[in-house]
Structure formats: C-alpha cells, structure tokens
C-alpha cells in the first residue's frame, strides 16, 4: 500500500518531457487574460487571487494548467533572441 502510494507520488512529481509551460509561448497566465477567457470569473472569484498560483491557458492544447507542467511541444518565448545568441557564438 505504502509502496504504491510512493510510486504514485513519484509518477506525479517527476518531470517527464519538454520544457516548462510557464516559459512557453503557447501559455498565458496573466490575470486579465484569464478573466477575459473565463466569463464570470471576476463575479465571485479573481484572476489575481493566490489560489490560481501560476496557472494559465495553453492555446495549443486548449487546457488550463499549472505553469510548472511540462510538455513535449514546448516552444520558448525567447527563441529568436537565443538563436541570435547561438549564431553569434555567445554562450
């Protein structure tokens, strides 16, 4: 029983693939954006509340999830800048 629980916990907490959603260009978690996407949220809730942590909307998959989740279709915001850095030989 305990071994099973530990296995479940490890499966849930271990990172698997790709990059973090919070740094992905498909991901948006600004409070105003979330309130606009979910009509009525501000009536008895808030896009700026602590309970939301860093959750946001993935436009690619159409799901609402934590910015700490990971995905194999991760696409970084700053790819263009980093590419320039790579091309210029900077590390």
């Amino acid at each position, binding site marked *: 029983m305990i071994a099973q629980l530990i296995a479940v916990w490890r499966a849930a907490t271990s990172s698997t693939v790709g990059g973090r959603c919070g740094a992905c260009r498909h991901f948006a978690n600004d409070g105003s954006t979330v309130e606009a996407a979910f009509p009525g949220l501000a009536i008895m809730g808030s896009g700026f509340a602590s309970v939301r942590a860093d959750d946001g909307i993935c436009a690619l998959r159409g799901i609402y*999830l934590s910015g700490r989740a990971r995905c194999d279709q991760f696409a970084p915001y700053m790819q263009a800048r980093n590419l320039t850095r790579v091309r210029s030989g900077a590390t």
Partner: protein
Amino acid sequence: MSLEPAAALEVPYQEAGSGWTELWRKEDWWAVWLGLGIVLVAYALFTSGSSIAWLAVSPPKWSAFSQLLGHLEANATRYVAQFAIILGLFAIAASLIGYKLRHFVPGFVLVYLLSVLVFAAGAWDRALYFNIEPPLIALVGGLIIANLIGLPRWLDAGFRVEFYIKTGIVLLGATLPFTLIVWAGPVAILQASIVSIVTFLVIFFVGRRLGLDHRLAAVLGAGGAVCGVSAAIAIAGAVRAKKEYPPIAITLVVLWAIVMIFVLPLVSRALALPAGVGGAWIGTSEFADAAGFAAAQTYGGFATAGTISGTADQALWSYTLIKVVGRDVWIGIWALILSVIAVTRWEVTETGGGVGAAEIWWRFPKFVLGFLLASLLVTFAVRDVSFADYNTAVRPGLVLPITTLRTWAFTFSFLSIGLTTRLREFAPAGSKPFLAFSAGVVVNVVLGFVLSVLVFGTYWQTLSH
C-alpha cells in the same frame, strides 16, 4: 550551426510562490497589507488617545429625509476624506496588481457613491418593515443596473468583488477574538470537512454517472464543496482541465450562490434559528465567500432588528469560522490530491510534471493569514482590559470604527457582485453539469442544516466572547 535543444533555450522561469513579486502582484497579499495597515493605524491612534472614528463615518439611523441630508451636509468633509483615503489605498494596490488604473478609478467612484445610497437605505428606520437589508439592496441594485440599464464593460475594473471582500475579512479578524477562533475552530473544521467531502463526492460521482469527464466532475465538485469559483478555478488548474470547463462551473456556482443569498437567510428566519446557528448553516451551505457574507450579514441584520435571537456578530463569526477557517484554507490540499490523481490516472499522456507538496502553499488563500494576524493582534492588545473598559473605551474607540470600515468594504463587494453579474453573458452549463451540481447543492444544504442545527446547534448558539 544546429539549434540548441528546446530545454536549453528555455527562458528563466520563476516558480509560483517562490518569488517575492507575489507579495505585490496578488490580490490576497494586498488585502493583508491594507487590512493590517488599517488595524495598526487604528490601534496606534487609539493608544495615543485618538481614534480613526472620525474617518469611519456612515449614515446613522434616520426617519425623515431631512435628517439624512443634514447628516451628509454636516459630515461632508469626513465623507470626502474617507473616500479619498480609501480610493488612494485601493488605487495604489490596483496599479501594482495590474488593473488598469484609468478604468479602476471611475469604477470605484461609482461603487462608492452607490454604497452611500445603500448605507442610507439600510439606516432608514422603516427599512426593517420593508425587509430592506443593505447586502440585499446592494445585490439587487447592482443586478438591476447591470442587466436592465447596462454599464460599459471597462468599468468592471473597479468592481473587484474578491479584493474588497478579502480586505473586509482581514478587518473582520480585528473584531473576532482569537480565543474564539481557537475554541470554535476545531468544530468549524470538523463540520466543514464533513460537508465538503460529502458534497464533493456527490457531485463527482453523479457527474461521472451522467457521463461527465473526470476533470469537469472534479472542477464542479470543488466549486460546490470548497469555496465556489475560487475552488473551481484552482482545481481546474490542478487537474489540467479543458478551458471550456471553468466557465461551466462559474455559471453554476454564481447562479446557485445568488439564489442562496436570499434563500438561506429567509428560511433560517422562518425557522427562527438563532443568529449563530443561521450563520453556521450559511457558512456550511453557501458557495462563495462574498455571497456568503452577504447572506450572513443579512441574517445578522435580522438579529439587530430583534427578529431572531442572538447578535449580528454571532452570525458573522460562525459564518466566518466555518467558511474561512473550515473550508477556504484547505483548497491547497484538495488541489494537491486531485492534481496527483489527475496526472497519474486521468491525464497521463498530454503533459507531465509540475506537481509538488508546495502546491498547498502556492494555492493557500493568503488573506486568511491577515485575518488571523489581525485577530491575534487586537486580542493580544486588549488582553488586560476589563469588560467595563472594553465597552466604554476599546469598543467605541477601536472596534466600532474598524467594524464600520469593514462594512464599507463588504458593501463595495456586494454591489460589485450585482454590477458584474450579466445574466445573458453566462456560458451555457448544459443539463448534465447542472444536474450533478444541483445534486450536490441539495445534499450540501440538507447536511449543512443537520450539522449546524441538530448536531452542533447548541455550540453555535452560544458563540460569544
């Protein structure tokens, strides 16, 4: 030259909760800063022989309209100062949280002016005869303005229901003895936990039986069982819900919560439940904090008018103990458990990682810390004061002014509920989610009544200092 792997290109990313920015970017923390700041200033003035009573002005009881006008005229400076200070504090917070200030300010001005009218209507000596309780006036007035007259959507920036209610809850902490939290807290947690778990399971399994997706059933269950819209949105993120799911839960929670604002106080009054018992039932069976406070304050108003036994404080205290201490603070644990289940059972392939015990802290409603600190602070400050001195000095000089400011904050919130509720704009919920959620509502209300009235009734009835 080949590209670097995606992981190496990853931009720096700040973990939720680990960054100090949360202290000035989240509404909860600003409620703590504003609420505790007001309490500290009030206490500092009180100990120096002064008081914030001058600033904490509101219309007194009146019978002739000329009396009301006379009061407003004589105290115009106080109202202007009160308005300017509250606007200034909220505007600073609003700009740092990320609301658009040019939209927030006009919205707040409207809320304040309407609040003066709500206060004035509630202070009319015939108000009781016509069942005019300020929270209900605020709610109905806001609903009429939003749905029959209509306001520009950008004004919504000033109608911050949650921000105002959280600030009011921190102020409420200053008037709630910490000893009472310690004494009644365990019972509140026990009662709230029983109802929360049962309600969640009912909504979840009825939803599953009707064919709803696991994640939608979980989002609906949390919305009905824990803390309404806030819980629904927190659990939606934890279980990685489809983006269509939160609006369904929001629609159902808001509509049922508004119904309960009217039903619970009126049924409690018809059953002649004492104030503390009615407040406990509302705390157990309402869904959202702001809606529950509207119902509990209404029920407290019945006690003040002598319609039911007990005091207005008892209704608000028992409500707060069950809703805030018994239900709200556990949202992080619900989120952690459901997120583990979601990523290991329901959604194994789409995305990975991101779950950890720190989830409990990240999602913790931080305004509760302000509420507890305010209670601890004032309780400690007046620990050696005799009962007679408390009533003659502490109550008028410290407690009542804070209570008045809290009532202003609550009124802003109740008005904002009405002003932001545009019934025609709700997402369609669908019959199956409606049935699942409504099944939970029935169980929640019945079980809440049994526990509040039959099991712990004596306990809540005698809630006092």
